[in-house]
């Protein structure tokens, strides 16, 4: 699944059938190349949906078993990862050598586990296991020698 198509998807509480919010962004842990949670656009202050509290990331909606799955950021690192400035879309992708790999247009992930599969730029489909860092300026990748432009 791609994060661009998954944004704005409704988050539905399956015990009440109510929409509790909409997917606003993805909390990405670069070191492990996985999505640790969702930033949810809600009416209240609870905006973080940890990945392990998801019932399912479905094709039409994200489901949770009850509304308590949503909470405020738990710690400073989660607070940092929930910063909209860390949205990967539009970030520069660079290799640790300083060479440019294009501008990130989308990120492919496994909707079951939250593991990132690939980062897509206009030039490359970059394997997510090479991801070293995601900051306010760039996504940094380890040596991708041998990768040919998509």
């Amino acid at each position, binding site marked *: 699944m791609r994060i661009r198509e998954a944004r704005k998807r409704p988050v539905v509480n399956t015990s009440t059938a109510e929409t509790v919010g909409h997917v606003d962004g993805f909390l990405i842990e670069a070191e492990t190349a996985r999505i640790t949670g969702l930033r949810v656009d809600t009416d209240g202050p609870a905006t973080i949906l940890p990945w392990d509290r998801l019932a399912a990331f479905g094709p039409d909606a994200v489901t949770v078993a009850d509304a308590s799955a949503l909470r405020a950021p738990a710690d400073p690192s989660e607070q940092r990862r929930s910063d909209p400035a860390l949205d990967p879309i539009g970030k520069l992708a*660079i290799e640790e*050598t*300083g*060479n*440019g790999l294009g501008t990130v247009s989308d990120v492919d992930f496994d909707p079951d586990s939250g593991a990132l599969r690939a980062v897509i730029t206009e030039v490359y489909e970059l394997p997510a296991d090479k991801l*070293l*860092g995601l*900051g306010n300026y*760039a996504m*940094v990748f380890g040596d991708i020698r041998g990768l040919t432009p998509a």
Partner: protein
Amino acid sequence: MSALLRAGDLPGCPVVTLAGERLAEIKDVVFDRGSGDLLGFTLNDPGFFSGTRSDALPMENVHGIGDAAVVVAGPHALVEVDRLLTAAERRGNDVLADRVLTEEGADVGEVVDVVLDPTHRPPKVVGYEVEAEDGHTITIPLKGAVAVSGERLVVPGRGNAHS
């Protein structure tokens, strides 16, 4: 990707950490005039209203230099600018504008840029770009240089720019 880089293309280049944060932009390239080697970079704050920063990036703390960024491990890669500039001034600080002379005494021209091999860690100087009196630019590999001083670069042979 093993293309050589010109030091003159680096000012304005972002300095980015492995975590993807932009720390600064390259302001100037600092050379060791005694050896012709690169000592590091002075820095500007990133962005349009950029100001000179009080810290600098020594070459030994550079992780990679490419066409998109100068990469460092983290913010600790930056040192006080005095540490870099004192080292540079002690030895004279710039190889640019040095005259290039052959061993036979012919003046070849003036050093206008320095060519780097970014695949070497830290990136090292592999040659000089020299502009002759007639406006032509030639590249002289560093291994062809006999000696570099604070005043000039001496290269082998009789190569006469006026012939």
